């Protein structure tokens, strides 16, 4: 099933590439709807009761380079499953949302869009690092092409910067992963790249090794997230990317970084994570406030939202490095929620841009009277992004902050947990909530409310588009809005199902350093490698 | 290295040789080419003398073959002249000399085929092409200075640096060869070339058969070597060549053996003849026969076999390369643009302008 999930978008991509350009849109939409359907089928096949362990929903692995121990092995736990659902959910929307925005080189566009989906699925279903890493890196290619071909004025520079920046980071992360693989393969013949085997090996490393590997991994994943000092590619890439590119970038691609941290850094390197959690947390807090304040002085709406992504993902990382269940669960929930609300915001901005061909708040404003429906959605998603209770952003933000607050506060009271942060972290990060309210409301105040301001020569004439949203555009935004609302009012299904994997990761973080050194885990590695080798049988 | 040659002396010679070579290269103003040549010759001669002495261990028979030294020095001297002669034509001619003396070295190494093909291909074909091109690509000399050299032939670029580099390379290479490759064995005597070819007989039985047939090996009638009485040769059912030995498969080995002994080795020489029960001991009813020397594979056989049987793919590729080179040469030499004379003149002017602009 998971293999199908990866292969189908590739197939679609190829089909679109060879089909006549006229039918590219229909093909892409149909293909992406099938992606959604496949996602739903996968979600139904997934045994949610056992969310903590990995299920392949069919084929376990496809041998790829058996001599090197490389095989594509599949498996998802409930965290990955939710992210797959998010990806599948966004797939048709991104296609549908670009119908009018993309009028030239349509085939290339949709073909790469589908390929991007395949790569993202690949990241979430991978159970070996080669497959994971290949997918992780392959996401860069379609987005690079989407940005450099379909972006705005400065697209080439943005695309190259985006590519090189993230690529450089990922290469370093790969070095870390390969080092772990090398360690894992030390006692077996050939190589193993299975995540399970690698995890054992990584956990057996000394504190110093773990610190170095963590540095390497964070170098790659933090760029992807992006964390404070390495975030500068994001505003540029967002600003220049086409709408669907921005949506996927904000919706799923940034989550690859946090997902990878959750999947690799936390369970692999418990000693280093425990040691350096405050450092990462400080970076994310700086990111929250710093990016938030930068948002305040932006005039470009899209850049503003892009910076707000930096700020928001700071909460996500903060929650994760709280190293307790509330924080991590909040963080995972945040990945989904941010994908919905920020993705939708990018859609809104894209629809505005299609009409006015500007994103400057100085030129456009007071659109509530011109585009009431658009304004409704814009305000709605802004509020979701602000973290208003009842909408999705709140629960996750609340949990991330609460997690940070609890972390290491077990001396305070019953609600405290293990962890390395503390109340001060949450208190300072909490000011980010105020800043978020400030810049987002200022943006809404300028763009949506106030006197109507339109760029010269853009009265009622938007080409083929009506003044307000078309049914298609409403159709794109409505599912997102519904998602925001449902997850805000009733996040329990998500929380219930991610509880087990989160608890598992948290349990892995609590290993005592002494015991870790004492236990030689070589036997376990060999065992895992053998299991991995013989996984065709089970 | 010490066993072959005294390193200090060796490097000293190299330094002197380097100095000589650099002096021998054409220079702009004062060009002490003769001095340089002499220095270089001295140095290389000294090196070879030292090498020869090191091989001499008291036994005059061990004195190195004089031809090697003669031709090696000729080759080196000629190659020095190739790079130091200011006139390209002479350089090419000296190169022919180099090739000739190298082909002698080839001969000494037992590679007759290569020696001759080297002369034919290199000296005969390639170098002649070079000479043609040299003629073709040299500006017609003015009446006033027939003997004048082109500016780019008259002096060399940075002769000292190049020579230093070359001699450092030489020192390192020879040091490496001397130290590294010998692996502790100081003398690497070259084996007699014929030893190599025994196994080739397996691959070319027809040559053996042809040679034996020429000697009447397969005729039905033979005669006694002593009395000259004719008798019937036994019929040979099958033959097999293994590592330079011919095995005869006959119906009656004893009779056949007898017959062949009677022939007195005129046609065949039975290996192990005279040893009692030679063939009963082996229990083999085949008769081992020594292959005549004339049937042994020659150098050409060996090269041909190695070329066709061992490196057929490379051979094909070489053919393709040659074809490509042929096509390439055609394409390159073809005149690209047809221009009238005026246009050419205009083009030449702009070219000159751009060149002078580019060089400033």
């Amino acid at each position, binding site marked *: 099933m998971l293999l199908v999930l990866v292969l189908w978008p590739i197939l679609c991509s190829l089909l679109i590439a060879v089909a006549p350009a006229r039918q590219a849109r229909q093909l892409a939409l149909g293909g992406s709807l099938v992606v959604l359907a496949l996602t739903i089928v996968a979600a139904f096949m997934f045994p949610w009761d056992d969310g903590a362990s990995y299920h392949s929903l069919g084929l376990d692995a496809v041998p790829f380079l058996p001599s090197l121990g490389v095989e594509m092995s599949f498996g998802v736990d409930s965290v990955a499953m939710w992210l797959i659902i998010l990806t599948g959910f966004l797939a048709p929307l991104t296609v549908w949302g670009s119908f009018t925005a993309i009028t030239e080189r349509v085939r290339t566009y949709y073909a790469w869009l589908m390929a991007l989906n395949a790569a993202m699925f690949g990241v979430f279903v991978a159970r070996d690092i080669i497959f994971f890493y290949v997918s992780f890196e392959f996401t860069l290619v379609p987005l690079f092409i989407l940005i450099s071909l379909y972006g705005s004025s400065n697209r080439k520079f943005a695309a190259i910067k985006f590519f090189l920046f993230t690529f450089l980071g990922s290469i370093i992360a790969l070095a870390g992963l390969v080092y772990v693989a090398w360690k894992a393969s030390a006692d077996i013949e050939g190589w193993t790249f299975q995540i399970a085997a690698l995890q054992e090996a990584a956990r057996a490393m000394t504190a110093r090794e773990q610190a170095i590997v963590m540095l390497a991994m964070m170098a790659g994943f933090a760029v992807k997230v992006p964390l404070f000092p390495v975030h500068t590619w994001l505003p540029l890439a967002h600003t220049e990317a086409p709408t669907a590119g921005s949506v996927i970038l904000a919706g799923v691609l940034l989550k690859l970084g946090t997902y990878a941290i959750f999947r690799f850094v936390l369970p692999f390197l418990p000693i280093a994570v425990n040691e350096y959690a405050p450092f990462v947390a400080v970076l994310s807090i700086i990111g929250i406030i710093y990016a938030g304040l930068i948002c305040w002085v932006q005039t470009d709406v899209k850049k503003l939202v892009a910076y707000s992504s930096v700020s928001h993902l700071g909460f996500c990382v903060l929650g994760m490095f709280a190293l307790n269940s509330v924080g991590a669960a909040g963080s995972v929930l945040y990945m989904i929620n941010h994908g919905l609300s920020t993705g939708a915001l990018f859609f809104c901005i894209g629809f505005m841009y299609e009409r006015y061909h500007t994103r400057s708040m100085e030129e456009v404003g007071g659109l509530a009277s011109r585009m009431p429906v658009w304004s409704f959605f814009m305000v709605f998603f802004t509020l979701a992004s602000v973290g208003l209770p009842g909408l999705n952003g709140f629960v996750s933000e609340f949990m991330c902050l609460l997690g940070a607050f609890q972390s290491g506060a077990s001396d305070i009271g019953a609600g405290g947990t293990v962890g390395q942060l503390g109340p001060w972290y949450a208190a300072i990060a909490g000011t980010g909530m105020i800043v978020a309210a400030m810049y987002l409301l200022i943006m809404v105040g300028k763009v949506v409310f106030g006197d109507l301001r339109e760029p010269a020569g853009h009265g009622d004439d938007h080409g083929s588009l009506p003044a307000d949203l078309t049914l298609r555009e409403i159709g794109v935004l409505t599912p997102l809005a519904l998602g925001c609302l449902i997850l805000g009012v009733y996040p329990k299904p998500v929380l219930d199902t991610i509880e087990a994997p989160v608890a598992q990761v948290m349990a892995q973080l609590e290993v005592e350093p002494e015991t870790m050194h004492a236990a030689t885990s070589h036997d376990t590695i060999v065992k895992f490698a053998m299991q991995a080798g013989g996984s065709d049988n089970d | 290295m010490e066993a072959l040659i005294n390193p200090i002396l060796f490097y000293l010679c190299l330094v002197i040789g380097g100095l000589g070579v650099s002096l021998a290269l054409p220079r702009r103003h004062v060009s002490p080419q003769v001095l340089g040549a002499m220095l270089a010759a001295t140095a290389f001669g000294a090196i070879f003398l030292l090498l020869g002495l090191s091989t001499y261990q008291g036994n005059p028979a061990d004195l190195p073959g004089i031809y090697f030294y003669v031709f090696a020095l000729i080759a080196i001297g000629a190659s020095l002249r190739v*790079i130091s002669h200011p006139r390209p034509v002479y*350089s090419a001619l000296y190169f022919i000399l*180099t090739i000739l003396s190298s082909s002698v070295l080839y001969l000494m190494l037992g590679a007759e*085929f290569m020696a001759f093909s080297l002369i034919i291909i290199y000296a005969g074909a390639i170098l002649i092409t070079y000479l043609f091109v040299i003629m073709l690509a040299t500006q017609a000399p003015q009446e006033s200075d027939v003997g004048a050299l082109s500016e780019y032939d008259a*002096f060399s670029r940075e002769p000292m640096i190049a020579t230093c580099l070359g001699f450092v390379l030489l020192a390192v*290479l020879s040091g490496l060869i001397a130290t590294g490759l010998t692996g502790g064995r100081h*003398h690497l005597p070259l084996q007699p*070339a*014929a030893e190599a070819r025994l196994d080739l007989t397996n691959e070319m039985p027809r040559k053996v058969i042809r040679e034996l047939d020429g000697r009447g090996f397969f005729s039905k009638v033979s005669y006694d070597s002593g009395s000259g009485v004719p008798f019937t040769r036994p019929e040979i059912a099958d033959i097999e060549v293994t590592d330079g030995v011919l095995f005869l498969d006959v119906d009656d080995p004893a009779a056949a053996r007898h017959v062949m002994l009677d022939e007195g080795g005129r046609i065949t020489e039975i290996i192990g003849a005279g040893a009692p029960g030679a063939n009963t001991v082996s229990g083999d009813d085949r008769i081992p026969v020594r292959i005549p020397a004339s049937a042994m594979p020659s150098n050409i056989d060996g090269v041909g076999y190695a*070329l066709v049987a061992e490196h057929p793919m490379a051979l094909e590729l070489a053919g393709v390369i040659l074809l490509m080179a042929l096509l390439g040469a055609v394409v390159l030499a073809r005149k690209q643009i047809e221009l009238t004379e005026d246009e050419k003149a205009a083009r030449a002017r702009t070219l000159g302008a751009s060149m002078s602009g580019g060089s400033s």
Partner: protein
Amino acid sequence: MMAPVLAQASEELLTNPTLFHYLFVSTIMFSIGVIGFLTRRNMIIMFLCTEMMFQAAGIALVAFSRYHLNHSGEVFVIFVLTIAAAEAALALALVVLLFRRRESLDAAAWAEMKG
């Protein structure tokens, strides 16, 4: 009949030079080729120098071939000859072409690759 006789003669008269002798000759020739290539400005001479380096390699190959008592080395010399021939054909064609353009054989006249 000539070849075996000569071979015999060489074997009898000149067994003494060891592999190192030949390799040393080859090395010297190669180095001289390098020096020539680096220092001479005439493109034709430069190509001649490369041919000389080929030649040096050929001597080494044949010497090794003899040392190991197989013919692969000689076969390689054939290939070297092939390459040399191809190179001569192409390089000389190029030289002619270039000479037509600039009326000069100076290698420094073609410095378009200057960064």
